[in-house]
């Protein structure tokens, strides 16, 4: 397998995968070493970027995925056969924001912050696979701790949680730093 066909294979793999493909998986499947895989992917990203294509190679949720250019969106909207994800309600996205920035967090903690019941928001978000149980809090009743999923990262176009836009003076209050969360996630 020379470098040109390796590139073609990596391109085909990323193209065919319905999920962002990690360097690790790419290396595993192609039997390339990780460094070569990284190099090939970087070359592909560059190529797509500089060829004025309608497609770009994106880094999302810790992996690589093809997507269209935002500039093409008005035309794509006109196309009927394009499945779009349904939007979230205002209440659900507020609950999701709290979970994203404060994870891991319990339902009661979110309710205290929002001042309303978040039962249905949480059910909705779990259903959409944007949040998930990440553990139990070591307090009486051992309430469920929620965190965001890989799908969350994908939905919001983030590579990892550190890419969440900064909210002034807020992150500091988080109970776990993001690297730790990332570790927990990977173990799940």
């Amino acid at each position, binding site marked *: 397998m020379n470098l040109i066909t390796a590139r073609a294979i990596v391109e085909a793999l990323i193209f065919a995968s319905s999920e962002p493909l990690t360097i690790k998986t790419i290396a595993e499947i192609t039997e390339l070493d990780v460094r070569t895989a990284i190099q090939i992917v970087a070359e592909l990203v560059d190529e797509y970027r500089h060829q004025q294509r309608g497609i770009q190679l994106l880094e999302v949720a810790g992996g690589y995925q093809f997507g269209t250019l935002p500039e093409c969106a008005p035309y794509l909207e006109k196309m009927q056969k394009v499945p779009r994800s349904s939007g979230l309600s205002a209440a659900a996205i*507020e609950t999701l924001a709290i979970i994203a920035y404060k994870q891991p967090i319990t339902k009661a903690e979110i309710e205290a912050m929002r001042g309303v019941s978040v039962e249905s928001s949480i059910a909705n978000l779990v259903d959409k696979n944007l949040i998930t149980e990440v553990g139990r809090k070591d307090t009486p009743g051992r309430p469920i701790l929620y965190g965001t999923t890989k799908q969350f990262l994908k939905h919001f176009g983030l590579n990892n949680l550190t890419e969440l836009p900064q*909210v002034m003076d807020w992150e500091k209050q988080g109970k776990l730093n993001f690297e730790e969360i990332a570790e927990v996630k990977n173990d799940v």
Partner: protein
Amino acid sequence: MDYEIKLDIFKGPLDLLLHLIESNEIDIYNIPIALITEKYLEYIHTLQLLNLEGVGEFIVMAATLMQIKAKMLLPQLANNEDGEFLIEEDDPRWELAQKLIEYKRIKEATELLKQCEAKQAQIYLRSSGDFADLKIGAPGDPLKDLSLADLMKAFQAVLESQEKPELDAVPKQVVSLQQRMAEIMELVTQEKHLFFCKVFSMLQTKIDLITCFLAILELIKLKKILAYQDSIFGEIMLTLIEEEVTVV
């Protein structure tokens, strides 16, 4: 109808309160509690008139506001026996102010997240279409694309992979077990490493297959041969046991 829309705008009591504070240009750390309570109750009253869902949560906040209002009326010295200055935390409004500030940040975070979402919504991903056969399970939801039919199929596959010899209605003894055992011993001696399936490949009738299988089992039991696999899903191999070797 008009109010229903308003209720939708305010995602909860904190949202409403924050709106009242901001629209009246009030300092969050120094909320004129009487004024805010009055405005808040006005709004709640309309909600109650409309008998809409979720009013309960707004009423809890109303109670909190009135409680704070009552505390504000108490002589401050009651809580301050040593004659020290009141520290911020002793202000009955402190907790509410903290909550509101936190809620303001939540709103900010929500806005930022919405922007991310809008930006990502501009990017279209490939529809799975033609590649349905290359579906890869979505993260987080381990069962995402697994249907009941898939589960059944998996189980069926297990069943089919089981030794499931069917018998002729009238079993006719063609080759005896002893004969078959001797044959297998011969084969294994010749070939050293014999493919398990190869032993069966020459056999035609079901009864022969069964006899052969039993012969292998018998030989394994007698520690004459050893059955092993190179890898988990590898072919089963048969080999002669020379001396004392543990049987799998």
